[in-house]
């Protein structure tokens, strides 16, 4: 599973990145977490209201920092076969 955190590097984007990593650890999931800071790439996903969260190239969240429960939900909504690791 590849997770991308979209955001030019402000406080909210860093919070989202940190929460995502924490949730992954809590769920015992392995994923490749990347930070995307390039504006054109961010907009390329159709995301304007940063921070945004992309799981396996699909935008699942944008425009605020989701709670950890919400991130858990978003991660679990990804097809089961792909999250297993």
């Amino acid at each position, binding site marked *: 599973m590849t997770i991308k955190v979209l955001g*030019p590097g402000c406080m909210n984007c860093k919070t989202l990145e940190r929460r995502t990593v924490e949730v992954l650890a809590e769920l015992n999931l392995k994923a490749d977490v990347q930070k995307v800071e390039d504006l054109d790439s*961010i907009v390329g996903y159709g*995301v*304007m*209201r940063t921070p*945004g969260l992309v799981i396996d190239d699909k*935008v699942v*969240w944008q425009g*605020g920092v989701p709670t950890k429960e919400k991130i858990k939900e978003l991660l679990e909504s990804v097809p089961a076969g792909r999250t297993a690791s």
Partner: protein
Amino acid sequence: MREWVKLLILVAVFLAFYLVPIDVAVVTASISAGLILLQEYARLHVLTCLVPAFFIAGTIAVYVKKDAVMKLLGPTTKKYIAYPVGSVSGGILAVCSCTILPLFTGIYKRGAGIGPAVAFLFTGPAINVTAILLTGSVLGWDFAVGRLIAAMVISIIAGLLMSFVFREHDRKTTDNGFATGLESDVPYSNLTVAFFFILQLAVLVIFGLAIDPSLKAILVILLVLIIAGIVIFTFRKEHTMEWFRETWNLTKKIMPYLFVGVFIAGTIETLIPREVITRLVGENSLPANAVASTFGAFMYFATLTEVPIVQKLIGLGMGRGPALTLFLTGNALSLPSMIVLFKVMGKKQASVYILTIMSLSVIAGWLFGEVA
């Protein structure tokens, strides 16, 4: 912040303490002037204006449905809707300055095009809600309203100009829009959110009224109780926590710079000779407004620090017109932001944008000085 920047700052502070002759009269006077202004802000503006203003900004960040606003800036929106929405959305969508550039790029390349994007880009920093509220509290509400209206009108004119000059560069296809409809919006009715917002605004307004202090206290307590009631009984706990977090983040980000800014603003009163200010920007003439516009465009003001600076410049004899001009270019443009604009928009577009904003601000400031 890069390590060598930290080192440079540390060395500069060290050299300042090492070299400045603290016991010379003018230095002592300016330091105490800085402290006096700090006390004025601490006593008059922090509790009654800034604290409510930060909560209001937090409300906008968490409770306003931004997806709905974004849809109005989409690729298929009619121009007569997209421009006005672009001109006010800066205050709604971009509470944090770091969100402005992705939004601008998005509206430009995937949404309503360069015109509304420019309108948004200008009003984002210019009609920041905390800045408008502090302006009103410190300099009077005619200034706050003037600043708000001038910024909105300028943004629309600048947007129209940009889209006319660069009409062949504007995107023509309406293929892929924004990622909307994701679950990031809050589930409360617009009415509830509007009521919640107005209650907080009322707290701030009542603080500013010249009424009997005990009546004022009763009214404020009443409003705070209603606000607390809404928070406890209507809003979900997770959203309330987000509201507190956003408010705290803004406070953390802005307050340290503001205190430094207020201190510096206090010191300039004794450091800059009154004659210099009255000669350069004392009258409401076009040259005076042009000086204010240029100074504001190149100078960097951290959020809100423009308010104490302008307050003290007015105290030194700056005219009201040039003061408004300085507000308009002060926040929207700075040397660092110009460099970023050149990178994002390209040389030609950025130059036209910067010159347009600078000259429109001169006109707006001059008009304000003539009318008010």
